């Protein structure tokens, strides 16, 4: 009995290729749905998770919170819930998670940040890079290919685990840095130091053009420019934002930030 498919069957499979591919709209819709669930902190076990997950992936169910993405979701939720400058009351307190708390959640070394997280509107999971933008700074450094391999034997599994851990650390570190910049920008805006706010947003743009919080940073940039009286620049920034993220939950806020 032949173990190969007939040429006729192969031709059929080839002819159907692309027939059931996902569309861009499918991808966008699912990205938004998943982000909404994560941002809302929904940890209801799925039917698909019951039973087999324990057998398949070990017994520490739910022990590491939601990992980096959940922390990201929380951070995004916090930032997305920031009011625009015009709705800020004098002395109004804005709670923001400390970067260390976020990092702690991201690396699984502690519980979720002890701040109140407002359920956020749908958020993209990953920002698309701007044209010409450099790659996100998430890659672990690698040795030049011409270097001779080290003579020390490193077990493959251990090396992989180390790489995974290093990547998680790098990603968590980036998130921490992004949060810090945006937190300082927001503080500047609150205190009327629009120069500081603008500088921090610009620094974020320069260091993390496709960062995890790029969308929130750009929205904050519109606020900062408007507060600084640079209304024309604010409108241009708002137009660029709306062009890049037309479906963003922050779009309405950005649109009305600097009338």
């Amino acid at each position, binding site marked *: *009995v*032949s*173990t*190969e*498919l*007939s040429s*006729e*069957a*192969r*031709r*059929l*499979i080839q*002819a*159907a*290729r*692309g*027939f*059931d*591919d*996902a569309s861009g709209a*499918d*991808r966008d*819709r*699912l*990205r938004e*749905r*998943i982000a909404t*669930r*994560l941002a809302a902190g929904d*940890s209801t076990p*799925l*039917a*698909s*998770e019951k039973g*087999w*997950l324990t057998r*398949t*992936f*070990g017994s*520490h169910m*739910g022990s*590491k919170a*939601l*990992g*980096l*993405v*959940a922390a990201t979701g929380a951070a995004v939720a916090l930032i997305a819930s920031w009011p625009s400058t015009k709705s800020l009351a004098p002395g109004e307190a804005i709670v923001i998670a400390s970067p260390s708390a976020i990092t702690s959640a991201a690396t*699984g070394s502690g519980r979720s940040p002890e701040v109140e997280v407002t359920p956020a509107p749908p958020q993209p*999971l*990953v920002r698309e890079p701007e044209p010409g933008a450099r790659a996100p700074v*998430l*890659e672990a450094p690698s040795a030049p290919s011409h270097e001779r391999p080290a003579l020390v034997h490193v077990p493959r*599994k251990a090396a*992989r*685990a180390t790489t*995974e851990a290093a*990547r*998680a650390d790098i*990603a968590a570190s980036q998130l921490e840095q992004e949060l810090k910049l945006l937190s300082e920008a927001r503080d500047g805006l609150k205190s009327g130091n629009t120069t500081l706010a603008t500088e921090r947003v610009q620094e974020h743009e320069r260091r993390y053009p496709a960062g*995890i919080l790029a969308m929130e940073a750009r929205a904050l940039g519109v606020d900062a420019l408007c507060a600084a009286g640079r209304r024309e620049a604010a409108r241009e920034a708002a137009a660029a934002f709306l062009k890049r993220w037309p479906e963003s939950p922050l779009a309405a806020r950005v649109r009305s930030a600097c009338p």
Partner: protein
Amino acid sequence: VAADSDCASPEQAFELHFSMVWRSLRRFGVPEAALDDAAQDVFLVVHRRWNDFKNQSSRRTWIYGIALRVASEHSRRARREQSRLSATDPDLVNSEHLSPDTLTDQSFRQREAGRVLYEALGQLADGERQILVLVDLEERSVVEAAEALGVNLNTAYSRLRRARQHFEQALKAARPPGSEEA
């Protein structure tokens, strides 16, 4: 695979593997109406269990494994709701959608091939369907398919052999009379 080793976060996993998951869920038998829910479930599990990945396989294989189980769950649910689940998407066999008048020759041929393909897949038992999809449609190795399915290699090979036999038979039955080419 370089792209797979670069999959360093759940967000990257989504961007990298969404198409594969979407397509595979349909091919594993998830009805069109449940596809959004199933795809969402896959990536929610990916997010929640990201740190439970044991490096015993590639991330892609791990995600295939999740997709297989989610697909089984959704297919079971669909069977409970319907007395008999047709794995074929009704839209795909709707003659209005297949009218050559409204489609280019190429897209018509593609849709017709897709219709026949899904009809034949729908005749296979779940296990056979899954390994055939992984190996012959997704072009994964039998080793990778065995890992995703959680079966040993011998079982995978014998299941694949049966799956191919049954697929060939189902294909003959699904083809319109006189049709030679898809």
